[in-house]
């Protein structure tokens, strides 16, 4: 087991990503943030919390569940979580937020799910951990917390205070 981010580093990373988002979207008027269920939401909650403290106006924030859009129903069932998008995404700038970017298949499914709600002006991607060289689809993040090189047998685990009792990102060898 190896620590990738400690609690203190994780907090700084969230601060930095929120500032980078604000740098690219100075007015959040036409921008919506969408966390991916289930685990991406812990991360997006943090980003939104920081954004609310540094942005001038209100922050539009929702959660998207992509279970029914997965391409791996044949490999096992996932339990669906709630989707809550309390705004229209038509012509808006959407920032998808997830904890770990690995094969890219979750983001592919998220794009499909998102487009069923309307036609956004643009979609960008914010992730806490980018496991590069593991992609199975041409998907890259626009905002990245930490880039790491991993092999397939390793597992990246993101723990959160509110769920696991401790903020940290660790790498597990199986």
């Amino acid at each position, binding site marked *: 087991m190896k620590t990738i981010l400690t609690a203190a580093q994780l907090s700084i990373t969230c601060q930095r990503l929120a500032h980078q988002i604000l740098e690219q979207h100075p007015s959040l008027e036409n921008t919506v943030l969408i966390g991916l269920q289930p685990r991406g939401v812990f991360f997006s909650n943090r980003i939104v919390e920081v954004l609310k403290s540094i942005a001038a106006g209100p922050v539009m924030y929702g959660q998207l*569940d992509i279970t*029914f*859009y997965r391409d791996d*129903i*044949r*490999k096992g*069932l996932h*339990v669906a979580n709630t989707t809550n998008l309390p705004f229209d995404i038509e012509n808006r700038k959407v920032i998808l937020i997830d904890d770990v970017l690995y094969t890219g298949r979750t983001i592919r499914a998220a794009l499909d*799910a998102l487009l*069923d709600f309307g036609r956004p002006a643009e979609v960008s991607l914010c992730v806490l951990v980018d496991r590069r060289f593991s992609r199975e689809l041409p998907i890259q993040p626009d905002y990245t917390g930490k880039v790491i090189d991993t092999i397939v047998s390793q597992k990246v685990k993101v723990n959160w205070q509110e769920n696991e009792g401790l903020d940290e990102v660790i790498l597990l060898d199986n």
Partner: protein
Amino acid sequence: MKLSAKHLLGIKDLTPGDIQLILSTAARFKEVLQRPVKKVPSLRDVTVVNLFFENSTRTRISFELAEKRLSADVLNFTASSSSAAKGETLLDTVNNILSMKVDMVVMRHSASGAPHFLAQHIPAAIINAGDGINEHPTQALLDALSMQEKFGKLEGLKVAIIGDIMHSRVALSNMYLLRKMGAEVTVTGPPTLIPPHLAEALDVRVEYDLVKALRWCDVANVLRIQLERQNQPLFSSLREYNLFYGIRREVLRKLDKEIVIMHPGPINRGVELDSDIADGPHSIILQQVENGVAVRMAALYLLAGRDSEA
């Protein structure tokens, strides 16, 4: 998480965990049905055949819509216009359909146990859409979802099931489900329409006095009088039935409390349920129909996913 059973033949075979999983998945699908695009690609590679050996409007449309909302390919089969009318056996009919690479079977049949028989002989997952006087599991699940939405939970809920208990697969599935989920059940109706030993067998109460049952309950699930399944007269007349067991305004007015009214449809208006009650503010009959699609989506989705894990 997955269902413990390979088929959905009856509530009898489900665990409380299975029921909870279907209901929570159905709640997610209900949200999908509010979206601009009311459709998800989950069952894109699944073909479902709807085998209806008995008439149906609601259940059949509801299943077909659920399948289409999940992006499955759908085949419809009606016994009256098929080779079953030429004398082909059930197993032959189904095996012929399955040989064309069909993955799931939704079946309604007038013979109790028909889907159970089929389950022993074919590899495809089967959903029972009503078998004779045995079970109608998706109806009980959509009733449960409707009650859960209305009251927040099923545990401790007092449900009266009223009418033709003897011939009702809706009643049997509801009794199994409600008892498994910790709700209390009282059945009421003419003694000729309530099977003996029901109370002991299913751990429910039997009450022959309609007003007493209504005073006790939070919800009244009113059943259809099924004249087509009665081969001998079990009560004197429809008018008499309406006077003793029909849900009428005068009866409800005596209760000094509000109860929620459910009915699985189709309603015999003026027999088991009067129009002003069926269309009144305490009726959730149309919510039941709405929930039917979401519940059937959940059942199809969970069985298709489970089927693939083997």
